[in-house]
């Protein structure tokens, strides 16, 4: 097991800069998820850690040792690819053993490790099959098995579940989580799926345009997104965003949102008058709340355990409201929607989070 340090790392392809001055500390035994939209540099970063891409600037250290010039095979890590990267002409057994045979591992030890990995991943009955005779989930297990047999100090996963269907993805997600609990090895996991990130990570790094937007636990990212991008990226269904104008009064500020009555909010440490207010669909309610506004139901999406209501304010803006599965509302119903002030997230005109000034600190 090993921790990993990324210092001022950049990656350029000619004039095109993919990653700029990135700093990151990954703790020993941590499950770190790199998440972000396509082209944010998450896979590139993973490939630099793996040794499959050169590092244009900065240093990457594994277990305290700088690995910039170390070939991939000497970094003591294993990688699971999105495409599985199984050798199509070899049986599962040979696929598992192939990598080990490059290192001076005795054949008895190779056999032991292969058998152990097969047992952990429950693929013992598939050992003599070729990859083409396996289902997507089985292929992915073999790919993970190939990573396990190396007994690496670091596991890298590059969108390993993207090629699986939805049901299998949920199942493999749970299996990966239990594998992590069992091995306790440092794992770095790249995905564009925020649900995967939220469910598996010890900590999540949200990347955009080659820069870290936020680093934190899933709870931190969900409850205290540092900027509008993270607020919008993390959480499903997507957070509601309202453009607002504030005017400062004697006791806090008054907020105007188009389509809603004005309401007072706690003091904010900013003179910015243009704000974005965000509120999660689960924090919006039909009928009550400290702040209320009128709207009309445009669409009802029934999901079983919950129902998503698309409610249009008189301004035309549509808010998503998560109601329970037994919702009585129908399309076209006029409703009142409401929320409580503590559930609001405030962002300034540059998109950065602003924390309301607490009463206690005001008193000081």
């Amino acid at each position, binding site marked *: 097991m090993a921790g990993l340090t990324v210092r001022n790392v950049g990656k350029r392809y000619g004039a095109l800069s993919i990653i700029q001055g990135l700093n990151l500390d990954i703790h020993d035994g941590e499950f770190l998820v790199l998440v972000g939209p396509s082209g944010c540099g998450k896979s590139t970063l993973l490939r630099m850690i*793996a*040794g*499959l891409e050169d590092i244009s600037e900065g240093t990457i250290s594994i277990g305290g040792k700088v690995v910039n010039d170390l*070939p*991939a*095979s*000497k970094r003591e*890590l*294993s*990688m699971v*690819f999105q*495409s599985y*990267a199984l*050798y*199509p*002409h070899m049986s599962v057994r040979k696929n598992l053993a*192939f*990598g*080990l045979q*490059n*290192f001076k591992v005795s054949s008895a030890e190779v056999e032991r490790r292969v058998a152990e990995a097969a047992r952990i991943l429950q693929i013992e009955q598939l050992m003599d099959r*070729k990859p*083409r*005779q396996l289902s997507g989930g089985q292929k992915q297990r073999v790919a993970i098995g*190939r990573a396990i047999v*190396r007994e690496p100090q670091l596991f890298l996963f590059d969108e390993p579940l993207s090629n699986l269907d939805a049901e299998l993805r949920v199942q493999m997600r749970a299996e990966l989580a239990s594998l992590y609990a069992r091995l306790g090895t440092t794992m770095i996991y790249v995905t564009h799926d925020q649900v995967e990130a939220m469910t598996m990570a010890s900590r999540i790094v949200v990347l955009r345009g080659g820069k870290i937007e936020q680093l934190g636990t899933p709870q931190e990212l969900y409850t205290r997104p540092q900027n509008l991008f993270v607020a919008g990226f993390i959480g499903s269904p997507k957070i509601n965003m309202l453009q607002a104008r504030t005017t400062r009064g004697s006791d806090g500020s008054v907020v105007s949102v188009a389509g809603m009555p004005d309401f007072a909010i706690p003091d904010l440490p900013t003179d910015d008058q243009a704000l974005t207010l965000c509120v999660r669909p689960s924090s919006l309610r039909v009928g009550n709340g400290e702040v209320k506004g009128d709207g009309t139901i445009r669409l009802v999406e029934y999901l079983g355990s919950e129902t998503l209501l698309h409610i249009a304010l008189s301004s035309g803006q549509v808010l998503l409201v998560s109601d329970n599965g037994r919702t009585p509302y129908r399309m076209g119903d006029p409703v009142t929607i409401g929320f409580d002030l503590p559930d609001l997230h405030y962002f300034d005109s540059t998109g950065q989070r602003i924390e309301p000034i607490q009463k206690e600190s005001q008193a000081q």
Partner: protein
Amino acid sequence: MKRFFARNAPAYVFLLPWLIGFFLLALGPILASLYLSFTRYDMVSAPRWIGWGNYEYMFTRDRRFWKALEVTFTYVALAVPARLIMALGVAMLLDKGLRTIGLYRAIFYLPSLLGASIAIAILWRQLFAADGVVNQVLAMVGIQGASWITDPDTSLYTLVVLAMWQFGSPMLIFLAGLRGIPRDLYEAAEIDGTPRWRQFTRITLPLLAPVIFFNLVLQTIDSFKTFSSAFIISNGTGAPADSLLFYTVYLFNEAFKFFRMGYASALAWFLLVIIATFTAIAFFTSKYWVHYENERD
């Protein structure tokens, strides 16, 4: 029947040029030559049926036939592997992702287009002549070169070198095959510390097997049929000392120099049997060494 023609008439109209070509220019002559191979025919008098006579003569009394077989088999055994190895080597170099790859592809393909031409065969004769460029270059480093083309011991090898130089078409096919091998496999191998040579033997070669097989069959057939270069370089005779007496050159001479059309037809049919046998062997053994990604077990 009537309805069938009514419905398909336009299709047959469009197919007509091909049908005429196939029956008149391909199938007709093929069947005619099969018939002629059992006759004595000098193109002046009518063919005379002699049964298996031509074949009997071929196998039991014609020494030059056996010499032609020996020359051709030696050539195929050397030229096919040489050309395929050369083609694969160049394809692997090009696969490394050169920026001007289109240009290089064109340049490397050029010899294959030119190679079959008469001009190149003449050029080859000049290059390997006693006072040719090859010997002039060798002389510069103090080596007295042989008279490559007129020496029966070396003449065949100059043609093998020519064959090697014409690697363009199998190279392009290899290149497409290499491009089809997912990069991930090499990256996974890289992380697992697989040395380059092992990557080549354990990943590249097995995954390229269908393409190697395809090229092998095509090049073998092609090499058995080699004619124009051997014909030009040996002045149409198979000289020196029959060392360039390729099967096709012998066949050509029997047909168009000595007008033994019946015998030449028999020779042609036997060449077909040889090529078919080799192709069949290749297909039969392929199941032991060719892996197809999508095959069903």
